[in-house]
């Protein structure tokens, strides 16, 4: 069997809160501010809805990077959601780093509904980072790779 060396195209999941970041992504879209198609967005009501299990699940199923976007601290539609999310993600990312998963694979960015540019820039940067890290081999289920 000849193995053709496939070009690495990462799978990147972006969790965006409905009120700020998802709208920010919409604004990036309507402003035609491009970023690589590797990013796929999942809409959640608030960053505090993002369970660490979702993030690990994404890695399990073959994601190479996971980014979570929410309203800026202080601007949460639900007042306090992103504060909880911030602590949860900080601890989770720290744990992933601790067990030797490259910390560039996870990221949190606060993007307001007005920040289409920031959304696009963030995604471009993040995708580039994932390209530089290459395929996620430390935190995936092998059965999903075959």
């Amino acid at each position, binding site marked *: 069997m000849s193995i053709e060396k496939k070009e690495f195209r990462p799978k990147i999941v972006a969790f965006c809160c409905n009120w700020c970041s998802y709208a920010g992504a919409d604004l990036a879209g309507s402003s035609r501010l491009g970023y690589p198609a590797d990013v796929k967005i999942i809409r959640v009501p608030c960053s505090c809805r993002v369970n660490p299990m979702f993030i690990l699940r994404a890695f399990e199923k*073959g994601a190479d990077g996971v980014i979570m976007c929410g309203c800026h601290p202080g601007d949460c539609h639900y007042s306090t959601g992103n504060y909880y999310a911030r602590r949860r993600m900080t601890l989770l990312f720290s744990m992933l780093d601790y067990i030797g998963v490259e910390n560039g694979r996870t990221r949190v960015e606060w993007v307001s509904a007005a920040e289409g540019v920031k959304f696009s820039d963030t995604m471009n940067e993040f995708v580039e980072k994932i390209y530089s890290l290459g395929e996620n081999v430390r935190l995936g289920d092998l*059965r999903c790779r*075959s």
Partner: protein
Amino acid sequence: MFKIAKENLAALFRMIAKNQELYLPVRTAGQVNFAAWSEDAKVDLDTLKSVKSPKDAFFPQSEGLYTVKKEGKKMKVEPENLKDQPFVVFGMKACDVKGLEVLDRVFLSDPVDTFYAARRDHGTVVALACHEPEETCFCKVFGVDAAEGAADVAAWMIEDELYWKPLTEKGDLLTETVKELLSEADEGKVEEEKEAIHRITERLPYMNLSLEGWNGDALSEKFDDPRWEELYKPCLACGTCTFVCPTCQCYDIKDYDTGRGVSRYRCWDSCMYSDFTMMAHGNNRTSQMQRFRQRFMHKLVYYPANNDGMYSCVGCGRCVEKCPAALNIVKVVKAFQNQGGEN
């Protein structure tokens, strides 16, 4: 009877592993478990008991059964291949070898478990005698001779030499492949060693445990005994006892969505778990007492009832060592002995 100097064991393992897979006790992160041999593997033949029994060589903790792949709206089923290459398990203890007999009676009787059968067909077992048995051992209770495992090859580590005695045809075959490393030996040292082991076993506290009253006919008497209500209480409902046990054979079948299809696999299950034998209506054992009772009733009553009086415990003592709540089958048996509460 053959022998080989201890310092040549690495060469022996290398030679065995040249043509087939070799599993043997390996120390990883401080613990000894059976694992595939490699040049870097830290082989540990001094530790009496591996944490997990070596039953996974024949009945792995998890193994794939088949994969269903999706092509458009059609499905394609790809069965997992059965074991078709020979392999060797080196260093099993007599109790663990006896454990295989318990598993055989389950998996090789009709309907035959083809995955297990294929592994049994292709596996050759080298048993290593228990040089220094420990206080948690009670194999003798189940008719196991710690000094000589009823395997394909029996082996003894005596001082700086390993003694090697093929007992079966498979054993002979294996011996042939490594013969150049072995030299002939007489049985004298082995007999001495066996005697020494027997002397020690006599001194061990559990070895003369009485199983009186435990048999296939004791069903309702034991099942309804009020003592279970007390005995189970410290039980944490973890699966440690079942997962270190060489005879526990229950498994669950589960599906895993790989994104491209479904991979169906089976994995060990534990009767201590609340979702053990869970069915659509719920669970037929609703309390931990019932689940706890199930384990011991199975080992000491149900299994003997179906297998000519053979118990499905081999006295390896792993559960005695590992139970987080210091419970174990010996305590259960003893509890039933003390009618008057005398120890």
